[in-house]
């Protein structure tokens, strides 16, 4: 591939990208407010509307999911302003994705319609709120981009799939700069009821420790020729185990194993080259256990190479894959594998695999990292392999 990661923008309950990295390095569990729960927890932080370049009128006409994605995109681009102005606007694109998109805004309008006795009291932007791709158009207007946009909605894999599809478009020469953004607003209470329920059996995580989080993460992609970044995307894969839509079947392990091997061999690498794995573990019970057993088989004998940021930052669903890419990139640039916090994990399960997990921050030169993201239902898997060219 011919694609580099130029920068990031993050909106999260914990704070911006630097605050997240601080928490990771210090292995601190942030204080978050739980908004609603039904077997799951989640937390959000208020958005400071005075501290970004988003026009306040946006907040009245669209869901916070779009606002979060705009803020994350804006942050990523502002970090590269001079670079952005040197590019052809017709080659700048915006790829966005979300699992729940603007559900809260839509539900608010439905409530308004029902409670007003079916009178016409809804927002004129209700129709736009039903569009999953609205954030791409809004972002383009905000930064005056005129290149190809897309909205890639792959559930919890949406954000990372925006990165994968965006990288393909840069590699094909369709775009030269791409904002790939995944984000969620989980404030709407019905979301708790819609989420799959993990009963805790075979969970990798301690009951009640895992939480879902609103927010958005933008990964800014650029072609090698246009970028001075040392982090490069070298391989990617999207696969699905069709047998495991409703429950995890044995075939899931072989599909995952095969996809990891192919993702590495596409880059002419083997598992021995991989310094850091950020896995797809996402509180999905049997699927998580299957993933750990696949990693154990493939990376047999390797130690201290797995880090799971979502335990600390919360699972941002569609933003989660992009957050992992951020964490992997920071780890590679800093030469550190952060410590996992044992408080988050189910000791009974972890005992089987604890050699893989790092319990103290570890300095190490990291050249290749593998990021795995899985959906919260079914057997969808997205893989991204990144390289640190400084080493």
């Amino acid at each position, binding site marked *: 591939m011919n694609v580099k990661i130029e920068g990031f923008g993050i909106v999260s309950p914990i704070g911006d990208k630097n605050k997240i990295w601080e928490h990771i390095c210090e292995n601190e569990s942030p204080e978050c407010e739980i908004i609603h729960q039904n077997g799951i927890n989640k937390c959000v932080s208020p958005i400071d509307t005075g501290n970004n370049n988003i026009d306040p009128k946006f907040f009245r006409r669209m869901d916070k999911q779009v606002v979060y994605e705009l803020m994350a995109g804006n942050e990523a681009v502002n970090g590269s302003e001079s670079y952005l102005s040197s590019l052809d606007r017709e080659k700048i694109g915006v790829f966005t994705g979300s699992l729940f998109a603007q559900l809260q805004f839509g539900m608010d309008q*439905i409530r308004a319609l*029902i409670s007003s006795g079916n009178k016409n009291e809804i927002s004129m932007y209700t129709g736009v709120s039903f569009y999953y791709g609205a954030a791409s158009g809004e972002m383009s*207007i905000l930064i005056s981009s005129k290149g190809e946009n897309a909205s890639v909605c792959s559930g919890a894999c949406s954000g990372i799939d925006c990165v994968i599809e965006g990288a393909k478009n840069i590699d094909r020469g369709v775009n030269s700069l791409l904002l790939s953004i995944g984000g969620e607003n989980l404030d709407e209470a*019905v979301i708790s009821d819609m989420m799959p329920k993990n009963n805790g059996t075979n969970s990798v995580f301690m009951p009640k420790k895992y939480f879902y989080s609103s927010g958005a993460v933008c990964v800014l992609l650029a072609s090698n020729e246009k970028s001075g970044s040392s982090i490069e995307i070298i391989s990617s894969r999207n696969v699905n185990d*069709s047998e495991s*839509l409703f429950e995890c079947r044995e075939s899931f392990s072989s599909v995952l194993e095969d996809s990891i091997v192919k993702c590495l061999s596409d880059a002419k690498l083997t598992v021995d080259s991989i310094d850091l794995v950020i896995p797809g573990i996402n509180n999905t019970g049997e699927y998580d256990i299957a993933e750990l057993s696949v990693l154990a088989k493939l990376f047999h004998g390797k130690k201290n190479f797995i880090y799971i940021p979502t335990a600390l930052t919360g699972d941002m669903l569609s933003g989660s894959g992009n957050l992992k890419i951020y964490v992997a990139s920071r780890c590679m640039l800093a030469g550190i594998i952060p410590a996992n916090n044992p408080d988050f994990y189910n000791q009974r399960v972890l005992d089987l695999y604890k050699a893989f997990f790092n319990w103290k921050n570890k300095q190490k030169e990291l050249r290749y990292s593998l990021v795995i993201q899985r959906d919260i239902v079914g057997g969808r898997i997205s893989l991204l392999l990144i390289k640190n060219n400084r080493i």
Partner: protein
Amino acid sequence: MKKRVVITGMGAVSPFGVGVQTFWNNLIQGKSKIELLNIGLDKEIYTPYGALLKNFNFADHFVQADRYAPYLDRAMQFVLTATHEACEQAGLFKDTERISRDRVGVYVGTTTAGHVSAYNQAQKLYNEGEKFSTHNLFQCTPGVWPMIIGKFIHANGPMKSYCISCSAGGESIGNAFRDIRDGIADVIVTGGGDAPISKINYLSFYLIKSTSRWKGNPSEACQPYSKNRPGMVFGEGAGMLVLESYEHAVQRGTKILGEIVNYAANTDGFHIVAPDPEAVRYGDTITAVFKEAGLQPGDIGYISCHGTGTYRNDAAETKAIKRSLGKHAHRIKLSSIKSMLGHAFGGSTALELISLTKSLKEGVAPPTINYKEFDPECDLDCVPNQCAKIDTDYGIKIATGFGGSNNALLLKRVK
């Protein structure tokens, strides 16, 4: 090495009924399915026009309906039904030994996904206290849709939903085309579908003055390219296609229905709900799709248009075509089947690509019905009211949508 990408299966669910042949036969006869809808709105004030597929019973068209139905929005029932037809035509069910499952992907375009399911469940929640459940996650969110199709056809390749705007069906097919061309997959089942008709969705389009204000015969409510066109009309349906590499199709010995030669897309960056009136980028998309393929304007004989029947869309679209094709724009034919079927959102571009495939093969362009009066801003040959003969090797499907998203697919006739 770039691969050629061909269409080997097509499936259509539209207000005309189930099946590509039903769809095509009604199109060329210029039949309208548009009527005033009973969606709880005063018909005199709101004029809620739309084209519905009536009496659709999923179980009549899908053998595993009982198993899948609890997880499906009405739109997904359309998509699965169309998928079944397309895969059967392509021989995907019987040719399992020569198809590698991990090289088969599913890309689905949808604009509003399962918003009607969300709307219905919300009503149950507020009126009866019935909570949302995990079933609603499957029904309402588009990310799950391709995985449901993947389970049905046993596909283990990439699964994606594309949702950019009303042009999502084109976005989905275009990206499937690229991934087969570049060797990422051998076969991709792709297209789009939506069932966007709900009281709340209609009202929001009414508020932004997009919906038809026509006060005459309901079947004439959508009048693309006519001078006093009254606005857009809602529709519903799904179009699904089986795309595969030419070599793969030949190896399997399956019939080739058409060839997708190129895909192009870009953005106005102008306004969230209005097209750029100068249609600069829309025109650029059309130019890119044939120029990148090494063709000249004179090679293009027919364009299947977005043609929503709104003042702004049709004027901008005409300008885009003229910008791109120059004088040749006046020599080609173009038409909007939304005049008959309304706007099926994510389903529309996919259905229109199926119509274009049939047009090139049969040498017939479906009409733009309800054409009444010449508009100098829409001065191209829109095949008014009666279908017309065409004889061309290349046709283009163009689409646009909210957020200023534009896309174009270049299709080649297979002789």
